[in-house]
């Protein structure tokens, strides 16, 4: 039995601890916002947070989550209020949308660690996330916009 905290709630599963976390989240926990793209940590579509770090859940065995906090896109905010979600909507960043959960989860760690990222910082933090629709220019804009929104929030 593996126990961890998923989006703030204690959960348990009897899935094989070697199973990649991605499939436990999607198939056992029913949280399908985290996507499969490559299965070898090449594309970032499966990005989630493990104790505040961005990880690729397609290659992280379930056992790595034991006793830890896992946050998925569903747990980022209850009501689309996270600055990244607001900025994504304002700028209409997604096209097909399939990679965007992973993009947002990577960007969330970037902003947490670096509230005012430069373009180079964004390149460094976001180059593990592929977007086949080519929304990179908008994702870049949206991250800058979210950083500004978060800064406004802090000064209020």
């Amino acid at each position, binding site marked *: 039995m593996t126990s961890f905290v998923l989006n703030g709630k204690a959960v348990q599963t009897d899935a094989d601890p070697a199973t990649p976390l991605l499939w436990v989240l999607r198939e056992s926990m029913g949280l399908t*916002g985290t996507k499969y*793209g490559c299965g070898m940590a090449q594309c970032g579509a499966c990005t989630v947070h493990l104790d505040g770090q961005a990880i690729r859940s397609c290659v992280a065995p379930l056992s790595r989550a034991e006793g830890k906090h896992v946050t998925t896109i569903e747990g980022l905010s209850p009501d689309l209020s996270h600055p990244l979600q607001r900025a994504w*909507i304002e700028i209409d960043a997604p096209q097909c*949308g399939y990679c965007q959960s992973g993009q947002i989860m990577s960007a969330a760690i970037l902003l947490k660690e670096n509230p005012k990222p430069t373009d180079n910082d964004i390149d460094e933090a976001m180059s593990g996330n592929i977007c086949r629709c*080519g929304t990179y220019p908008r994702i870049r804009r949206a991250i800058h916009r979210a950083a500004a929104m978060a800064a406004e929030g802090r000064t209020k």
Partner: protein
Amino acid sequence: MTAAGLDRREFLRASAAVGGGLLISLYVPELELARAQSPATGGKVFAPNAFVRIGTDEIVTVIANHSEMGQGVYTSLPMLLNEELEADWSKVRVEPAPVDAAYNHTAFGIQMTGGSTTTTSEWERYRKMGAAARVMLVQAAAQQWNVPAGSCHVEKGVVIHAASGKKASYGSLANAAAAIPVPSNVPLKDPKNFITIGKKVRRLDTPSKTNGTAQFGLDVTLPGMLTALVARAPVFGGKVVSFDASESLKVPGVRTVEQVPSGVAVIASGFWPARLGRERLKINWDDGANAEISSTKMLADFSSQSASPGLVAKKAGDPVGALAGAAKKITAEYDVPYLAHAMMEPLNCVVDLRADSCEIWTGTQFQTGDRANAAKVAGLAPEKVQIHTTLLGGGFGRRANPASDFVMEAVNVAKAAKAPVKVMWTREDDIRGGWYRPMWHDRFAAGLDANGEPIAWTHTIVGQSIMEGTPFEAFGIQNGIDSASVEGAADLLYGIPNLQVDLHSPKIGVPVQWWRSVGHSHTGFSVEAFFDEVAHAGGKDPYQLRRKLLAKQPRMLGVLDLVAQKAGWGKPMPAGRGRGIATHFSFDSYVAQVIEASVEKDGTVHVHRVVCAVDCGRVINPDTVTAQMEGGIIFALTAALKTEITLENGRVQQRNFHDYPMLRMFEAPAVEVFIVPSEEKPTGVGEPSVPPVAPALTNAIFAATGKRVRRLPIRSSDLAAGAEVKS
């Protein structure tokens, strides 16, 4: 509407919605008769053909007959309808249409999404639906108030009688409106009165794409559903001789392993056991006829084939004579590889097959064909098969498969599974799964007059036909010429008096398919890069020579001049940078681009800036047009700089994003998009930004380095200091 739409007798019909409200449907007498007589419906007439549902709760649901794969149709179709309906936009929702002939593409005659044609197909129909509903709602209010309908107007979902101050919401009128006869031929608005069309509207689907609630095919779950992976032949067309599943069946969660026409299906409780089970399968394959295929050898074969002309697709003047008499002659050969679509969401399909029904959930671009093909496999009438179209995690043409490969396979697996089943493709399955953009070879010769201007142009194309053997063959192939092989070449816009474009269509056992911009994805590159060679050979500025030869093409000239001005053509740049220019006409839209690039000593290419001008007729949602230009440019840069599918011994040599790499954030240039205002009819935007990218880039590399790239993807080894470009 197009001729196909007008040929069919079609009427709008209103009915009461289940649970109250107004439905506006398309009524086609022939279809209705067929339904009434069909044993599949037991003679019961139903009407799954609504385009809009107005609920008593004020919610306006627009039914989208085209698939949403990122191109924004789940916003633009509601915009078209609501331009006439004028409901409160915050109450507008969208849902996918079921499969029904009422939803057929107005030009293609089947229900499908492709060819950058959603707006051109639906531009009139969706507005007509909205207009009819509005007129009926107004009529219902006027009857209630006992006033002339003409004295009422609408504002944001409310009918208003200004003289009396009476108001009624659409929701409160919906039931009464359902009893009103449907008006015929409601005049559509004069475009100068548009309130929504042409203005930036935020996408309806973005919120669901930022919190994980957007439902793609991969996200569909049914009670008792199993998950399957199929082991497919390592060589296209290969067959299973025998297999040993004993090790697979030992994996906890693997339920059964079954042979299906496309290979061996491992059917399990979830993805991971299915994958482990598939890894442990031992299969003895008969490789069949394609085990010798080598793309290296094809490259040489295509080149030698191109030395003699093929079937003539276009001829003007006397190209041979003009070439012979030219003051200067240049020749060149261009190559592009097979390419996989590599949508971020790998293919998948959920099937619930019962004795007398088959329900399918998948992200498809090809509903009519998929339903017919699924019905054949299921042994059911097509009416017994329903397809629930989910969001598509990218399409790029792959999900409009003329053979319904992933849908038919999934129905076959469902037959074997005897339970609802989700068939998934891994990324490796996707990259190795075929249905590629064909490999192409283009051989050119041009003759220049004494002034350095081209007077003769010959172009021989070698590559597989996409449409041969598909339901599209009848209209897509004329006199042996597949129009998708020569598009963008045979319809050259440049005024060159002596011209020939001809085609060889070798038969090769690698399945090929449309890939974003189809034939234009090679002709855009080769034609525009060779045109640059012609300009330089004649000592001409590539922009000015284009201007001169496009004198009779005002709309292309418009985008060309706009892009040159915005890019600062001819103005100084940082040292080491080159600027390249290209144009291309595709999907009835005009695009011109300028790219600034530089090349490091080791041959690494940097794309600094892309400037794009587009004329796609009247624009529905300008931000969508901009997004499609941006996205198409990034997509095309991946093809220009990174990807190729190669085969040796019949086996595909790439398998995942490490060896089929995508452009990433740090490589994505600044993209500037400029839209030419137009009152012409709307034309394509999903694909037209792709073709000019590769030539604008290779022309920029030539400007920066003097090295001419004639083979994609661009190889840094060819561009490194001291290297000779191979072609």
